[in-house]
């Protein structure tokens, strides 16, 4: 299989006009072109009136090229920047809040939080809420190490990411 046909996860950063319904338009566009979004985040950007969306989507090179071109067809989209697929060339963060029961593994849990540099942000007799921040793979590794009957609730922010200083930003198309 050559690289162009390889299916992998792509991160795309989009600068959009901050108007009602813009998230829906982007999400709709992706859905109707058959692109699967695995994460989407939105927040204010450095430009007043513009928001930044960070979207993670699965597909091959052809799909990612289409995504950028299709996204530009939305009047609300100002700029599309692909985020470098090489992990060393980008900074990527996700945060999760995990509500856990202590059961009989309280000590192990505290150790795990320590190892992952997590934070205990709420605690009671039965359990705690843990805040864990890092790359998606780190967050997922932490969750995998908890046993299923320990986890009560998980809430994740989705990924925010940007290219490092030394990466020359390419125009989307």
């Amino acid at each position, binding site marked *: 299989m050559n690289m162009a046909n390889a299916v992998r996860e792509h991160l795309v950063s989009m*600068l959009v*006009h901050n108007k*009602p*319904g813009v998230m*829906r*338009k982007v999400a*709709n*566009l992706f859905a*109707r072109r058959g692109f699967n979004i695995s994460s989407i985040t939105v927040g204010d950007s450095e430009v007043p009136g*513009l928001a930044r969306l960070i979207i993670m989507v699965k597909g091959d090179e*052809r799909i990612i*090229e*289409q995504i950028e*071109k*299709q996204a*530009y*067809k*939305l*009047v*609300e*989209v*100002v*700029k599309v920047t692909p985020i470098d697929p090489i992990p060393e060339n980008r900074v990527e963060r996700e945060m999760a809040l995990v509500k856990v029961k202590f059961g009989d593994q309280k000590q192990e849990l505290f150790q795990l939080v320590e190892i992952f540099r997590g934070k205990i942000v709420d605690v009671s007799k039965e359990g705690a809420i843990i805040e864990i921040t890092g790359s998606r793979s780190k967050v997922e590794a932490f969750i995998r190490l908890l046993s299923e009957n320990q986890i009560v609730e998980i809430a994740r922010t989705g990924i925010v990411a940007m290219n490092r200083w030394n990466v020359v930003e390419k125009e989307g*198309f």
Partner: protein
Amino acid sequence: MKGSKMLFEALLREGVDTVFGIPGGAIINVYDELCNYENKIRFYLFRHEQGATHAADGYARVTGKPGVVIVTSGPGATNTVTGIATAYMDSVPLVVITGQVPTSMIGTDAFQEVDVTGITMPITKHNHLVTSVEELPYSIKEAFFVATTGRPGPVVLDFPKDIQTAEGEFDYPEKIEILGYKPTVKGHPRQIKRAMELLKNSKKPLVIVGGGVNISGAMDLVNQFLDKFGIPAVSTLMGRGVNPSNEKLYYGGIGMHGTYYGNYAVANADLIIALGVRFSDRIIGNPKTFAKNAKIVHVDIDPAEIGKNVRADVPIVGDVKSVVSEFLKYDFKTDFSEWIEELQEVKRRFPLRYEKGGKFIKPQYIVEKVDEVFPDDTIVVADVGQNQMWVAQYYKFKYQRSFVCSGGLGTMGYALPAGIGAKIGVPDKEVVVFAGDGGFQMNIQELMTVRRYDIPLKIIVMDNKALGMVRQWQQLFFNCRYSATILADNPDFAKIAEAIGIRAMKIEKPEEVDRAIEELARSKGPMLVHALIDPAEVVLPMVPPGGDVGSPLVEAPYDENLVERILSFEKSRGE
């Protein structure tokens, strides 16, 4: 100034003098205001919002100006959906203004409330729910600007009732810029140079003319380009009107029902210069075998079209008109006479043909007769299905924007209302509507609109008592099992037209065609010809869906049983 008045003031500033629509509760204030603009804006009332939308679409396709539709909320808005989607697929500029329930009631499932921006999102170039009277002037400007620039398309403006009556400052922007929206007009000089170098070194070049050429108004330039370098050309369904002075340079339509020789040219070319083409599945058949010997130069104003369905060796993002005028600046000697001789030979061996004689009217003959009798600059509007393909094959279009039909969405019922809009747009030209019996019944109510405004439209209903194109597929690919396609119980369309007050004629014998078409051309007012045609005729050649365009079907057995079935139904009814 009230919001509803702002709308009309904005329309005037955009040069709009024609509006199509139907009123309703959530747009009543706008329609009330319309009374104050009666001598500046011509309004056409339709009998169904779909009809109004197709009419605006037909108007836009022949004039190049945006078509404007004003309808009410809820069902008024949802009825425009097919019309909007039709315009979207064929890149037609529309501005559709839908009434909406007052902002305070949005989200409460109020009477005739529907989420218009949600519903129309995937079928509009842009849509917007107006949320305050302050933003209204800008929103209208933006709607027209987006609809008409770059690759044109429909824009929906959802206009809540309380904003129609709200007072505000009317400050209409002359020009706007939208951050991030800047269509590329000029093609990249390096890519243009590469394209011309490929042409210089090519032995078998071919130009594919697409809808973009009609939209950009580049047909004359394209004809010049063909003549200058002696390059043969073909066209897509939307790209009709190619007319180089050297006749040997044009080989008709391509794709599913293209000519044999046109598709042969595509399959055997070593260079394809595609102008304003989106390479739809109906054009390329099997993407793996499409033009496998050719390098492809793809010119389109929409970057998303390049590389979407076929690979492009030389991508040129830009307006076709600008790019072709750059092509024309190049000067070098070319000689493609061997290639043209090859194509001429294929054309002699596999011409477009149909069986003449026999007891039934041949639809192809009607089309040829209309071409012969009507003036050269006639606008021809076709519905969807067999009628559309026969028109596309047998009518020789000589001008840009002279063939109007729903190419991308394939909307049956399009032709009658679109023809009305076209005639309103270019009243000095003849407008002929071709429809099949199936599609005609899908918007037959607009005959009332023809009558109401006495629009001198010439309508030909080619009645084969079937949903003909689907029936043809059943004939060819489903062992003649005609599931739900036979309309042997069709009404007498001439009588329906007469009941409405439109002159009409019904014909069923081949020798009646000439007189009927001549009569149609002479008629000063609207007229309808109901022609009973051969019920078993098929459209050929045909590239089966997903098939190889180089080897289309050129023959199909004639189904006598089908003819028998339809005739015996008539007998059993005592006709």
